[in-house]
């Protein structure tokens, strides 16, 4: 199942190389379409890093600071 998912993602990535021109990116450039966390989300990510054993792979901080309270 995991291999199938990875294969599907790779296939999607390879098939997606057809170009979307800049003038066609009105929807892609919508602020809600950003592939990053929202500014106000940084604090939630911070608390989650404190309260959970896992971290990373979200563009956030991956080290530094205690986080032990």
């Amino acid at each position, binding site marked *: 199942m995991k291999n199938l998912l990875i294969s599907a*993602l790779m296939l*999607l*990535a*390879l098939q*997606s*190389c*057809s*170009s*979307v*021109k*800049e003038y*066609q*990116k*009105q*929807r*892609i450039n*919508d*602020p*809600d*379409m*950003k*592939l990053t966390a*929202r*500014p*106000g*989300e*940084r*604090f*939630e990510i*911070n*608390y*989650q890093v*404190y*309260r*959970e*054993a*896992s*971290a*990373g*792979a*979200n*563009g956030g901080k*991956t*080290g*530094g*600071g*205690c986080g*032990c*309270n």
Partner: protein
Amino acid sequence: MAVKQAVVVAAINMKKIFLIVAGFFGLLPVSAQEVEQDSTGVGYKKRVLESTEVDFLMSYYKQDGIHSAVSGGKGMEELTDITPTIVIAMPLNDDDVLTVDAGLSAYSSASSGNINPFDSNTPSPWQASSGASASDQLTALVVSYSHSSDDRNTIWNAHASGSTEYDYSSIGFGGGYTRLFNDKNSELSASANVYLDTWQPIYPKELQDYADNGNDLNGGIFNYFDVEGDGGTYNPTAFKFHDKKNRNSYSLSLSYSQVVNQNLQFSLFLDVLQQQGLLSTPYQRVYFADKANYYINEFQLADDIERLPDTRFKVPVGARFNYYINQWLVLRTYYRYYTDDWGVSAHTANIELPIKLNDKFTVFPMYRYYTQTAADYFAPYDAHSSTEKYYTSDYDLSKFDAHQYGAGIIYTDIFTKAHIWAMGIKSVELRYNHYNRSDGLDANIISFAIKFVRI
């Protein structure tokens, strides 16, 4: 025939892989130049950042639970935290941006107050201490610099950071490289970060006083309180001070983003993290099941502090998929799988549905599900054996599920009609989330962010 088709498909895919890799290393001719020409034929560049932007951010966090790690997995976890933060992004010229991110995190914690619960005549893991460790303030500063190439297809960045709190300090530095290609429809990034942290360890008061007086009960709190227990004498022989005080973190991050079509784009993330040094928290108590229990009032005296390996290797893999459903509705999703060599594996799934009320206001309900397995070294209160090498009763390392749900609202005005002095308001975000963990920990988080642009 089928074989021939397969060979052709494989060749096409190989070519696409080559284009992606070659594009990342800048080996392809650039098709989309950002250097444009005006009506007189004079070339000009669009600035990466038009003018200075200032973000003011603030959050208020409040949690409560019943598994305080400071009192060995039993006790109140009440904590409040307020985090005023300012982020200033300044264009240095057409290509370069300097960003300064400065913040405070001021907290009060009943749990960490119980590092020394003996400032009360009736010490208890269920009551907040008024001791010095009951509140602290983390101060953090990050300075980042980024440079974009003339064609805006290559971005270099570097950053340095520092943070300090009462018993902990951190310095960090790192850098990254981003390459856009395929008409800016594809983006590959690589970055590396190093954090060099230092503990100034503080220990549970009874262990500190026991060790300071030559492993004896003549001194410190033992002069003021009677120790009651199962017979014999309180004698935490497992306890010794930590030799190492450093905690170093090294990370490598890779990400790939792709515009699939006019409505869909996604990102894939991979981090590899290595931590070394003092990875346990020196003031978190542990109680052994095979040792007698001793108390001062209701507060059980520690058998030892948390002990954990001095290395940890973490691999999180994540993905974001964002889909523009229509002019009123967008779908934002995120998934992460995490594994490490302490035995923790975790899944995170996040969904957000921004609903555009008009051209300025968007509301977004959101939900996050999280689940993790326990670390190999975790056991609940009074369940560890004194013969184990590593042990912790910190429920952040236990097996649990968590649900987080909430909503937010964003005001956006790209024309910055509303302004305060020379600063136009570009966006305002307010969000609230409730966090519920299956071990009984509950939290509420309110965050606020406002972005100003110099006009």
